[in-house]
Every structure is written in structure tokens, then in C-alpha cells.
């Protein structure tokens, strides 16, 4: 029998209270950890949230470990290696509410661009010794493998949406996570449409809101990191953007963090796949 951690011995009363609080876990698969860090970025509320929930697994924040069960499990990262398939299946079985967070977990991530390429070719392009690396031919969203109860989009996720989700969780109401276009956020903020006023290609009309329209507010087009919204009419937007652009340029606009999401993927497929202008491996002169 493993001895409990000393810190828990010292807090018997809070441990007892912890049984009433939802058991929360945060785990990751193929990803950069940025979405997990958004949790830690909720500095003002972090302590208050920590009192309302029992964080039993969160490698970025605590040395506590738990194999479950979880009332709520936040899952970051795409499923990209064989052992990850087993692990997500196991986690699902011990989790009540499974929440995917970020573009990798919800859409496959930037790494899903490899899904269009030859697996071996990519492995050799990235790793000097690919035989030490086990990977799947595709990087895929968690929902391709197990049922997902809720998702927080973005690269990284929005602190405001995470806060809303957590507050709704502890107060027992439905989180308000709109599925509308980024355009509504632009217009509410008074950001002038970069597409119409400056001809900058923008995925805002087909992308789910939540970021607060950061990119258009800085004069850039939206590159879709929150992924497709409901009724995302990517075909119409792509047709409009095709005016004066070749197929590869149109495809490039959709080949980003959520390229593998179905509405974006079908545009990429219809325009000859991701642009092929991947920089060639750097030539190292033979010694």
C-alpha cells in the first residue's frame, strides 16, 4: 500500500471537504502545453477555483498524480501515437465529463498537416533517427477515438471561455460558449473588417468566436485557430477568395491549426492539398 503524501496528512479536514468537490484532471497528448498554461494564467481566480474543485491530476501544476476517476477531465493534445489511443480509451472509462481543450485536441492541431503527406517521408524529415519514434500516420482529434462531452477551442484556448466553463461547472449552470462567427466579435468591438476594407483574406466568417477577434483588431486576417463554427460555409468563402489567387494560395489560407477539421479539410482537398512549398531539409555539408 502506498503511503499518502505527507501534505495530505496535514490537511485531513480539507481532504474530507475535497470529497464533496468535483475531481478535476488535466492531461495532455501531442501538444505544446499552451492550453494547460491558460489554466495557470487565470491568476486572479486560480486560488478561488482551486477551493471549489479538487485538482487530482495536472502535471504542469502539481506533483499529485491520479489514474482517476475524474468528474471532469480536461484533455489537451491530439492523438498522434499508438500508446495515446490506449491511454485516451482508459481515461474515458474513468471520466464523467471529458472536455477537449485547444486546436490539437479538438481538430488534430497544426501537426495534422502531416496527415496529407507520406508518414515515412515526414518522419525522416523531422527526426534524424525515426526508428526511435513511434507515431501514427495521422494526428487526429480526441473525438475520433472517444466520446467528448464539451470542447474549448483555440490555439491556445481563451482564458475567458475557460473561466466561463469553470464557473458554470461549479455553479451548476450551462456554460455560454457561443458557436457564432468571429465577425460578431469584430463588429461588437468596432474593428473595421480587414477583408472588405483592405482585401486581406480572413477566415473570421467561418471560424468560431471566442478569441475576442484578436487578429483583425491588429489588422490581420483571422487564420481560424478556433476552427470552424456551425454552418461554416467554407466553400463560398473559398470561392470568393479564389478571385486573383491560385489554388495553392487558397489552400494555404485553410492549412493552419485546424486544417484537419472537416469544413477546412474539404477546401484544402479541393485545392490540391496543403501547399507543397515546405522548406526542404537544410543541407548540411558533408564533413
Amino acid at each position, binding site marked *: 500500500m502506498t503511503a499518502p503524501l505527507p501534505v495530505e496528512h496535514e490537511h485531513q479536514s480539507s481532504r474530507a471537504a475535497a470529497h464533496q468537490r468535483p475531481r478535476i484532471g488535466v492531461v495532455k497528448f501531442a501538444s505544446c502545453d499552451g492550453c494547460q498554461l491558460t489554466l495557470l494564467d487565470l491568476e486572479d481566480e486560480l486560488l478561488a477555483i482551486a477551493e471549489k474543485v479538487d485538482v487530482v491530476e495536472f502535471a504542469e501544476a502539481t506533483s499529485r498524480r491520479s489514474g482517476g476517476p475524474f468528474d471532469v477531465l480536461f484533455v489537451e493534445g491530439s492523438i498522434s501515437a499508438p500508446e495515446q489511443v490506449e491511454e485516451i480509451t482508459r481515461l474515458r472509462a474513468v471520466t464523467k465529463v471529458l472536455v477537449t481543450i485547444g486546436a490539437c485536441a479538438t481538430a488534430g492541431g497544426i501537426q495534422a498537416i502531416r496527415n496529407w503527406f507520406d508518414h515515412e517521408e515526414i518522419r525522416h524529415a523531422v527526426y534524424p533517427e525515426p526508428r526511435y519514434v513511434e507515431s501514427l500516420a495521422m494526428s487526429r482529434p480526441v473525438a475520433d477515438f472517444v466520446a467528448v462531452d464539451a470542447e474549448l477551442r483555440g490555439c491556445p484556448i481563451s482564458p475567458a471561455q475557460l473561466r466561463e466553463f469553470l*464557473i458554470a461547472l461549479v455553479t*451548476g449552470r450551462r456554460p455560454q460558449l457561443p458557436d457564432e462567427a468571429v465577425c460578431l466579435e469584430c463588429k461588437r468591438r468596432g474593428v473595421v473588417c480587414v477583408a472588405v476594407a483592405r482585401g486581406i483574406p480572413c477566415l473570421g466568417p467561418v471560424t468560431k468566436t471566442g478569441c475576442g477577434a484578436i487578429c483583425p483588431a491588429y489588422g490581420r486576417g483571422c487564420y481560424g485557430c478556433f476552427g470552424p463554427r456551425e*454552418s461554416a460555409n467554407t466553400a*463560398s468563402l473559398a470561392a470568393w477568395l479564389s478571385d486573383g489567387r491560385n489554388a495553392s494560395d487558397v489552400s494555404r489560407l485553410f492549412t493552419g491549426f485546424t486544417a484537419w477539421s472537416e469544413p477546412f479539410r474539404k477546401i484544402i482537398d479541393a485545392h490540391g492539398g496543403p501547399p507543397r512549398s515546405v522548406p526542404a531539409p537544410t543541407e548540411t555539408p558533408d564533413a
Partner: protein
Amino acid sequence: MSATSRFLPRADLDRFFTALAADGRRVIGPTVVDGSIVHDELSSFAELPNGWTADTAPGSYRLRATGLDRAFDYNVGVTSWKRFTHPPIIPLTRGRREGGHVVVEPVEAESPRLAFVGVRACELAALRIQDRAMRAGPLGDADHIARGDAALVVAVECATAAGTCFCTSMGTGPEVEDGADIVLSELDDGFVVRIGTDAGADVVDRLDLRPAAPVESERAATQVAAVRAAIGDPVPTDGLPTRLRAALDHPRWAEVAERCLACANCTLVCPTCFCTSVAVASDLDGVEGTTERTWDSCFSLGFGRVAGDANFRPKVRDRYRQWLTHKFSTWWDQFGSSGCVGCGRCIAWCPVGIDVREELKAIAPPGAPSGPIPWPLSPAEGRAPAALAAVAPASHVTATVQGVHFETADTASLQLSTDDPALLAALPGQFVMVELPGFAIPPISVSRILPDGLNLTIRSVGPSTAVLTGLTNGAQVSLRGPLGRGWPIEAAVGRDVVIVAGGIGLAPLRPLIDAIVADRPRFGAVRLYLGARTPRDRLFVAEMNALAGRTDLEVSEIVDRAGPEWLGKVGIVTQLFDHAPWDGTRATAFMCGPERMMTATASTLEHRGVTADNTWLTLERNMACGVGTCGHCQLGPFFVCRDGPVFSLAELGSAFGREGL
């Protein structure tokens, strides 16, 4: 007021700014930001877009230098003035819920003293049109009214025509006729100034201007006449409202949906679109809760959603049709004018260049209407805008739970006590908005009217209704209401009465039953037909049994699915009366239930001879404001919250049961 025009030399423009500021006003006007002409607060008229114009086309807006020393040679700014009269986000309420005690207080409406400079004829019309919409209904929108009333409007007559302008067709411009406090016409060397109101005269009189010379006034008139000629008449509007409503099934709706991104840009740049949603926020403890009103759009999927995740406009085709028909057709029924002013913003700011002028020509071309008229109202005989009620509904009144009775496993009746006179004057068929700080605010029908309170019967279908059905004695809720139009009981006096209820639909019918039973001799035969999913889903069982025991009422029940304990009838509710031996022509019918049940009931009642104007029903929609100002509950020409929720079949016409409306 002075009928004479004055002349403001260009060099004196700053004095005009100073006069506006001296009137205690912040000056909002056009200025160049990020390659566009937007309306923003100005610190001087040096910030006006001097020497700039904007070329607009479907899906395109480009600033262009004119090389001229003129400030208003563009048409409309990117942003409409609704940003200031109907801001994108305003706080609505602040609430607290602690130990069961609930207090919700409305946030006071703001009315900053602003001067709007550069308002075009079309925009002036838009301010008027949106204002009319926001003053309609039992309460209106207090914040909008306060802001609009506080603003001073300095209009400018257009001297150029953009490629997207069509004010001439909509009858709103380019000439500024009335409605502005001050009207400017820009000439090369200065401005012809006309005074529209006393407030405008107060400002202009401080400038001590000379009268405009006849040649200057003439030049101003020639200039705007040239604009009118340049625009022409791109959208023939004769009969347009009727032509559009007769084209609800036009194939073009599906075609435009192929191009439409449903991104909502057209509605948000539109100067008259007023639809909003309520966003709820709370603290971690669930004690403090706030609500905000935010711009929303009929193009967003969530806008058509109702409890239980059903959606009235799932398809983009339905959403585009809702927007276009509202703007050009049903707006007439609701507010007595077109909802479009021809500013062309929806054309320029559509990211894929959909041109409303072209869509109108394709869907509702000039000439005879293409199909049947789906509902009886027409612009000529449209309803007058609803007047403000003599007794306003209660706003955020705290009521206390005096009793909780579980009718079924998931449905509870809350007995609420209140001494608020408006709430106690509730009529059968009316509803209230029930607020607990931090939770979404559901509309709930009144299920019994008591001398000292109300009963609400609530089915738990989501978090808000779950927490409401979980309340115990002594807990409080905040109520707005009573809202909407109730059952027209008087219409049934002296006639037979048929009441058909499906499931929770019995709740809004119960006060009607109470009223009829209390006044039983005034009615002919009274028949109740009650349907439920299973025997366990029957509501008010003891009461209905008691009614069934009376000799002056007939009560029949049926369930969709029965267990072994059920000895009654099994099937759908219409089976109870499709062959019953009564004469429908003598009957007034009242019904409520799931929409599909009501469609079937309506058709059976029609077969039984009950006429459409004697068949009354109550509709479920996504009611957010409850008073007709948020736009959520629109059904064709109706706001269900304000014009209903009780309607006759004759009023609804084929809007009843039509997919996607």
C-alpha cells in the same frame, strides 16, 4: 426656429465644434481610422475625413483621396449610429442570491449628451425607424430611448453617391427633409446651415451666422439633386412587402444560402437591425449574477434555439429569409414602415458580396406576387405599433416560494407569493420571466392566478429549470411580467368550449380552466381533452379527476404509451374527439402542447367545424426580453412575446407550423 438658411464659412467650422461642446456635448463624427471612415469621438473638426471619400461595391470598401478640401464627400461610415444609440454591449441587471434570498436590480439606463455630426438622410431615417421599434411593446427599451432622446443630430446632405446607395428607392434620401436638429449642405467654401429644432437653433444662434445667399442654397439643392439622379431607382419598392411574403418558397432562398456565410455582418452593420441576446455571468460562488444585452443576429444558429435544443431556423436559407423578409416586408406589419433605409452597408460589408438589391429583384420581382399570401396582414392594414401599456409589467419583483408540488418526476409547481399589483393582475395565458442571478432566464407561463400570488409549473429541461424545480419553501426568485397577450376568454362566452392540452401544455391552460369553471353558467358545453406521454407525465391529476367528477364538464384523457396500471385510452390526443358527437361550429377551442401535437389538433378541429378565428393556441418561442425588443421570438410578422403567445389560427395563417420561420 428660423426658416432662413444660414451660411457657415469653412474657416469657421471650429467655432461650430466649440458651440457643440459648449452645449455640454461630446461630439461624435466621421474620422479616418485604419483606412476607413468610422464614427468616433472627435476632439476637433480637424479630425473630419477632409479630402477623403470611399468607393464601395458588393464586398468591397476602399478609401480614396479626392484632393478636395471637403469633409463630407463620402456617404455612410463603416459603423452606423446605432453603436451610440443601441450599443453593442450594455449591462442590464445586477443580482444577488444568498441563502435563498434574491434581489435583482436593473442597471439604470445611460443617456450621455452626444452630438452626432454627419448623419445622412438614410441614417436619419434609420435612427427614427430603430427608435420606433425600441419604443414599441409594453415597456420599450429604456436604454435605447434614453440615449436617443439625449442626442443632438447634425445631418449632412450627401454630395456624392456611392455604388451601394439606394436611399432613393427606399424613400429616405438623399435630401434631408426633417428629423434633424441641424442640417448642413457642404459647398466648396463652407456650409449652408438649416435649423430643424429648437435645440438646433440654440447651437446655431451662438454662431451668429449670416443668412445663406440664394445662390448658395441653390448650389446645395443642385448638388443633392445630382446625387438623386446618380443613384436612380435600383430597387422598385411598389408592392414589395406583399411580393416578398408571397415568395416564401422561392428557390432563390436556397441559392443565396449557398453563397451566404451566415456571418451576421449585414445585420450588425445595418443601422436598423436591433436584435440582441442576454448574456449571463456569475461569480464562482453563484452569489452575484449579472446580465448584459449584446448585439446578436438572426444569422446565428443560436438565435433560433429554444429550450430542449430545438431550433426554429436550422438552415442558412431560413435565416437569410428571416432577415430579408423582416427588413422589407414584416417590418411594415410590426412598425408601419420598411426596415431598410437603403444605406447599402449590408452590400459593401458582406464578405462575399451578396447584393440585397439583386436578391430582391430575383426573389420578388416587380409585378404580381408569385405565390399565395401566407398570413392575412398587409402593410396597408398592418397593426399599429403596440402602445405602451397603461399599467407597466412588473420589473424584477422578488417573489417567495410558499409551496412546491411535484406534479411528475421532472415537473414542479411553485407557489409564489407577491403583493405586486401588476403580477396579481396577471391574465390567463400570460407568462413571466423568471430570474435567478447567474442563470439563464426562462419564460414561464402562469399556471394559476391566486389572490396573493402566482403558480408556475416548470418542467426541468436544462440547468435553469432544474434549479427552479429544486427550490424549496422560503426561496426567492425575481420576476418580470405578466407579459404577452392571454387567452381571449370573452370570445368564448355563450359558446361551447373545447380545451386540448398536450403534456406541460396544460399549465398555461389551467388559469383559463379556472376562469371558465368560476363563471361556468356563461359558457355552453365545456370539454377538456388531455394528452400525456405516459400516465406518469399527467399534470394536476387530482384536480383533473375532480373536474371529471363534475356533471357540467367533460374531461377525457389519453396517453401515448401506457403501463399495466393504466386502464384508460392510449393514443394521440386528437383520437379523443375526432369522432365526438359535438358541433364544432358552436365551439371556441383553446390548445397548447408540442408544436406537432398542435398541428394535428388544428387540423382535427378544422374537420370538426371549429373555425380558424375560433381556434386559439399558445406558441413556444425563444423569448429573451419578453417585450418585443430583442427579436428572438419573431414568427413572420409577429413577436410571439408581445403579440402572443396566444394567437388564433386565423391570425397566424400559414405561418403556423411552417418550417424555418
